[in-house]
Every structure is written in structure tokens, then in C-alpha cells.
């Protein structure tokens, strides 16, 4: 390989057919006697612009498109050299760091010698070592192209905002599961807002047996094993539900507050009493109607109950998970849009309450297709207030444009699976921790289950990994009509 050109932080390297370099590979450019080296990543492999190549190709097809037949007597065997030159490649590389005195800096100002530099491939383990991507809490994500393991540290997810995105069936949920199971291995508390019931079998192996994590997986299905009694609710949590999920106007909310306080004073906080109180309220009939419609929405969700024995305390699961690590799966499958919002409002409200009072240390929140249940104001909350309280969110989506731009800008780690749509890639490339060119070039070529890891987890050295397989029962598969036909 030969250094050809440098423009900004792009280095162009001339490669030859016998040198196997692919997109995503890292190269080390060492200057002779310079005691410096550049770490660059190949973001595109093109044909080198060899003079006369067009004539060469045209010459082989002069007979109206039909290949002209013939023989070549080439005693000096020049033809292999011609092929060698024709197949020369131009590697477009992005400068990722400069090594000087064994320490890395993100600078790209040093220009190595074109004639004296040596260029060699940099293996992922060496790069990880150089970048000090190691720690006491390793998470093996999978294998790199050269069959090396890519290990990140769990602490790189701690206190961070993460995004897992890619088109359908590329392995996003699989990676989420891998991260979750590794986090609980280190005692973390994880909450999953599971839209399609994909995580409910985290505790089962593919053949239906209990796995090592079985006791740490708590599946809460609203209106089934996850119900709440009004007594356990704080007024502000219920008001959040009424205002944000059920869009209760301010005047009606004030009236509700009065009713609630009155019932609480009488220690009569039940659904039945609440209904009665609204009915007997002497407020404007429009307000009463508004309160009634919300009351029936709460009632119909079957998420609320008066039966204390039926109620399931979220705190209990959280405390249990907090002690030894665990995943609380909020199964939102078969839950209507309104009910989903009610449940999510409740869960987030409860989390904030427990975290504010330091009853909980921190939680890792995994939110699948969050735009379907997360209210507008939560997006900003998640990257600011909630993060400081100890809610470290990971968004999982196949529609990157549903996540707000400021989330991308603030994201610490992005796990990017294949996208072919340029519009999608454009959205993802708004992330502050990566350049658009890398995202667009590498993500389009990712095979299923291959993920481009960007951000703090890999110390800003984008790496492609084939996500490790998990022996976990797959759920959330698409129902098919022709399943027995083939």
C-alpha cells in the first residue's frame, strides 16, 4: 500500500489486488523516524483512476458488444502486470487518531511522508488495546471480520444515551438482548418497554428451557400481572397520566386534584369511590364529562384495580432487580395506544419518584419504537433531567427519523445496523459522535446481524461487529400466512 493523497482528514491510499483490505478495516501509517503514526479507517474502496483504463475495457468489446475471440502470445507475461495495475484500488480512509509516544490524540494535522511511510493493517485487538477499550466489566459483542472478539466495557453504557437502529430484521432486538443480559450479569437494573413482546422469553433457551437468567427476568403485562391500586399512586403520577396520556384540560385537572385530595383524606381512594366522587362533584358539567371520560379510560385499561391482592408493585420488582440485577419487561404487546401511554406514564413517573428519593440507584431503560408511546416532552427530559436522575436510555428503532435530532446529537453510543435508504442514513449521520461519510459508506454494506458500533463504547473508533448469537427463545416473530406452504 502506498500513501497517495491527504485532503482534510481523508487519506487516500493506493492498494493492490494482493492486499486484502475492506471497508471498515483499520490501517496504521507509520512515518519513518517520525515516532508518530496515523490510525485511519477505510471508509470506501474504489478502483484507482488508472490512465487508459477506458480504452482497455473498450478494446475488449469492439465487435458490437460481442467479445472478440483471439489469442495472445505474451512471452514476457506482461498480462498479469496489466491486470495488477487495472485492479489497483484507491482506499478512502478517515483519520481516526494520531499516535505519539504511545498515546492517542484525535488530531489529523500530522502529514506522514508519502514515499517513506509504511502502511499496514491494524488488527482490532491491537486497536482496542491502543484505545484502551477495556475494563473490568467486559461485554463481548461478537466477532470482527478477522475473527477477533470485540469487547466493550459495561461502564461505557453507564450514564449514557444509546441508540440501536437499523432496518427490519437486521438484529437490533438481538443486540438489545445481548446488552441487557450482560448488564444484569453485572447487577444492573434494566427496564424494557417491549412493544411487540419480543423480550418476554429472555429467561428461556431456544428449546424452551429455563436459562441462567430466568430468575432475573420479570415480565409485567399490564392488566394481567401488572395492575396498580389507586392508593399506591402519587397524585402527580396520575395527573401526568391524565394530562399527558389522556389529554385532560387544565381546569378539569384542577377539579380532579380536589376530588383526589378529598378521597385521600377520607382514605377512600378506590376506583369505585373515584367514580362516585366525579358523579357527585358540583363542578361545571363540561368538566364533569371530561373527568368521566378519563375515568372510564382508566377503568377500561384494566391497569387499575381496587383489589390490593391483584396489584403488582413495580417497586418490588425494581428492588429485587436492584439487589442482584434483573430485567423488568413491560410487555406492551396487545395493548392499545392509549393504554400503552398510560402504562409508560406510570412506569416513568414511578421511576422518577424512586430515583429522586434514592430508593433506586439507576436503571437502564430500553425503549422500542418509543415514538409510539413517549410523549413529546419526554424526549428532552430523557437526555437532560432523567439522565441526571439515573435513567440511562437506549432507543431501539427501525425508523430513525422518529427519534428527535437532539437525541442523535446527544447520543453517546450508536449501534447501527444495515440501512439502504439514504434518508435514514442522513438522519443517523446527524449524531455528533460520527461523521456522515462513515455512516453512509459503511452502514449500507452491513450484512444482517452485523453492526457498526459508534461512540464511547469503542472510544470513537467505529467498528463493525457480527453480533454474537444468543441461546434465547425468539419471540415477536411476524405472523405469516404462507408458513406451512413451503
Amino acid at each position, binding site marked *: 500500500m502506498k500513501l497517495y493523497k491527504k485532503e482534510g482528514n481523508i487519506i487516500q491510499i493506493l492498494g493492490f489486488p494482493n492486499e486484502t483490505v475492506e471497508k471498515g478495516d483499520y490501517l496504521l501509517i507509520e512515518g519513518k523516524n517520525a515516532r508518530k503514526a496515523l490510525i485511519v479507517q477505510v471508509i470506501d474502496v474504489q478502483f484507482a483512476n*488508472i*490512465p*487508459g*483504463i477506458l*480504452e*482497455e475495457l473498450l*478494446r475488449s468489446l*469492439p*465487435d458490437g458488444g460481442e467479445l*472478440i*475471440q*483471439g*489469442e*495472445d*502470445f*505474451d*512471452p*514476457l507475461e*506482461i498480462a498479469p*502486470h*496489466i491486470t*495488477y*495495475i*487495472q485492479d489497483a484500488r484507491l482506499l478512502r480512509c478517515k483519520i481516526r487518531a494520531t499516535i505519539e509516544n504511545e498515546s492517542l490524540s484525535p488530531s489529523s494535522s500530522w502529514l506522514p511522508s508519502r514515499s517513506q511511510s509504511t502502511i499496514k493493517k491494524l488488527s482490532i485487538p491491537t486497536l482496542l488495546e491502543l484505545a484502551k477499550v477495556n475494563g473490568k466489566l467486559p461485554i463481548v459483542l461478537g466477532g470482527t471480520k478477522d475473527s477477533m472478539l470485540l469487547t466493550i466495557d459495561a461502564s461505557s453504557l453507564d450514564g449514557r444515551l444509546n441508540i440501536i437502529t437499523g432496518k427490519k430484521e437486521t438484529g437490533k432486538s438481538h443486540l438489545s438482548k445481548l446488552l441487557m443480559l450482560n448488564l444484569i450479569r453485572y447487577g444492573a437494573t434494566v427496564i424494557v418497554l417491549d412493544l411487540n413482546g419480543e423480550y418476554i422469553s429472555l429467561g428461556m433457551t431456544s428449546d424452551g428451557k429455563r436459562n441462567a437468567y430466568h430468575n432475573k427476568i420479570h415480565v409485567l403485562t399490564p392488566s394481567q400481572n401488572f395492575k396498580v391500586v389507586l392508593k399506591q399512586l402519587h397524585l402527580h403520577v396520575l395527573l401526568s397520566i391524565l394530562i399527558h396520556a389522556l389529554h385532560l384540560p387544565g381546569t378539569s385537572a384542577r377539579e380532579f386534584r380536589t376530588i383526589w385530595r378529598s378521597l385521600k383524606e377520607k382514605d377512600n381512594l378506590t376506583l369505585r369511590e373515584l367514580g362516585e366522587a366525579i358523579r357527585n362533584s358540583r363542578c361545571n358539567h363540561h368538566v364533569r364529562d371530561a373527568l368521566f371520560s378519563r375515568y372510564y379510560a382508566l377503568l377500561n385499561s384494566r391497569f387499575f384495580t381496587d383489589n390490593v391482592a391483584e396489584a403488582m408493585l413495580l417497586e418490588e420488582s425494581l428492588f429485587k432487580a436492584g439487589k442482584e440485577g434483573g430485567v423488568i419487561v413491560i410487555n406492551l404487546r396487545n395493548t392499545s395506544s392509549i393504554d400503552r401511554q398510560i402504562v409508560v406514564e406510570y412506569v416513568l413517573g414511578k421511576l422518577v419518584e424512586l430515583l429522586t428519593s434514592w430508593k433506586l440507584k439507576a436503571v437502564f431503560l430500553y425503549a422500542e419504537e418509543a415514538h409510539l408511546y413517549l410523549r413529546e416532552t419526554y424526549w428532552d427530559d430523557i437526555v437532560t433531567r432523567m439522565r441526571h436522575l439515573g435513567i440511562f436510555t437506549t432507543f431501539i428503532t427501525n425508523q430513525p427519523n422518529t427519534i428527535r435530532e437532539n437525541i442523535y446529537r446527544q447520543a453517546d453510543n450508536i449501534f447501527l445496523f444495515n440501512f439502504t435508504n439514504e434518508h435514514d442514513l442522513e438522519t443517523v449521520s446527524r449524531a455528533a459522535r460520527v461523521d456522515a461519510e462513515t455512516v453512509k459508506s459503511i452502514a449500507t454494506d452491513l450484512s444482517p446481524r452485523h453492526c457498526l458500533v459508534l461512540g464511547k463504547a469503542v472510544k470513537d473508533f467505529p467498528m463493525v461487529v457480527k453480533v454474537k448469537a444468543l441461546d434465547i427463545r425468539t419471540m415477536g416473530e411476524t405472523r405469516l400466512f404462507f408458513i406451512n406452504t413451503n
Partner: protein
Amino acid sequence: MQTMQIGSQPIRLKPRTEETVVAAVDTSTIKIGETSKGMLIAVRGATVWKQKKHYRYLRVGPFIFHVTEENKKQVYNALQRAYFTSPHEHNHNGSPSFLQMPTRIANLLERWQQTMLSTTVTNGLILFDGSLTSGIADTSTKRMKQILDAARKRGNIVLAFSKMTSLRFNGYLITDVLLGYKPPYLFEIAGLKPRPPIVLLGDVYVARLANENYAFRLDIDKEVSIERRMEAVEKLLGNELFSQSYPETLRLAHILCTFTANEVIAMQHFITRKYDLKIINRPDMHRLLFGPFGKGESRS
């Protein structure tokens, strides 16, 4: 050549479609670099023939030579001996000059390929690139005659197409003045008397064989009767494709032997790797002295 005359009427032609082999030869040479002692040149030749509506080719080379002032004679004579079994008559101009070596070596290869075609093709049309003029430095009359004789003995007819000509009539190029007729046709150019030792081994025509507004100088073996000459051109019309009035076989031969820039780089790569010869990049003195006003040595 003051007595040159052009036929008053065009010779009209009708394509004859009976199956006839059309074969053509061309060679190419290129300087691929300079060394401290001399220059590196490459030559390549291509033979193309059309048979049963399909084109086939045989390409020989590239052959690479390191030519120096010291070895030029030895190289040239060695090639003469290798290409031609009969000893070559003494060249009027002695051994080629250093700068002529690329074209002279390519010419040797071309003559050898023409000889091979003349002695292998039967009842075909053999197309040469250039004229049938001999007696000049790189084309001996004897060798050219031998090639034409050999071709005739096997029932072949040699047709030589010149892409460019310097022959003028009333001050105009002969290929420019006779375009006012419906093609295909020939115009005979008579009365050409070259100065010795130059000999014309063919009769000269202006040929416009297709609708495009291009005409070429066409030399046809003198020893062939007029009827057979016309029959040969008509067979060419019936068996060959014409692109801009130029025969496709000859065009392909030219395309296949020409070196591309890519091949030059490959040959430089080969030489550096295999023979460890250091190619010198000499400064372009025109550019060096005259800057943007220097047109470059390669174009001078």
C-alpha cells in the same frame, strides 16, 4: 510526381458477397521510459481476420527492448535474423539511428506478420496499414515484393489503406477532392513517378467505400489484373464492415496492438520488478524553460 492524373470518372463498385477471408495486420510501438544508458521501448503486433462473420485475432507481444547507442545495431540485426530466414539486403541508410529504433523494430515485426499472413491465407483479402511504397529506410523493395509474390501465389490480394496521404492534386489532398459521387467507388490515380530508390509496388486509388464523407488512399498490388483488383474491392465491400469508410478488420488490428497508458504503467512495473532497471524521469525541458508556454517535448 508532377504528372499525376486522376481518372475522369469514378469506378463504380458493387458488393460481392461470396465468402472471402479478410485479414489485416498492424503493429504499434511506444517508448516506455528512459534509463541512464538508453531507452525502453515496447512493440506489439496484431493480426485480425474475419471468417464466417466472426472476427478473430492473434496478438503478439508486447516485446520490450532496452535500446542503447551501443546495442542498437546488434538488436536490430538480431531481430532481422530472427524474423527473416533470408538475409536482408544491405540497407541503403545503414543501421537505424537511435531515435528511429522504435519504429524500425515495429516495422520489422509488421513485415514478419505480413509475410506470415501472405503465406497462410488462401484466396483472401489481406489488408495492410499504409501504402505499398518501398525502397524507403524501413521497407526494402525486395522484402515487399516477396510478401506480395507470396500472397499472389496463394490467390490473395493485398489492399493497403493509408489513413493519411500527402498526395495532392491542384493543391488539394486527393482524398478531399473526389467526394461528390455516391459511394462505393474508386478513382484511379495515374502517372505517379516516385524518385529512386522509392518504388511503388501498387497502383494508387482514392477509395470511398461507405456513405460517410471519408475517402482513403488505397494501394493495390500492381501485378494483379484490373479485373481482379476490382473484384477484390467488391469482395471487401460484401464481406467487411466499414466504420467511417475504413475496414473494420484493419481498425481492430490497430486497436488491438495500440498500447494504452495502463499497459505502459504495467510494463514499467514489470521492468522495475523483474530487471531492476531504474526508469529515469527526465525533466521536460520545454516545460522547464518556458513554463506555461512550453508545449511539452512529447508534442514538439
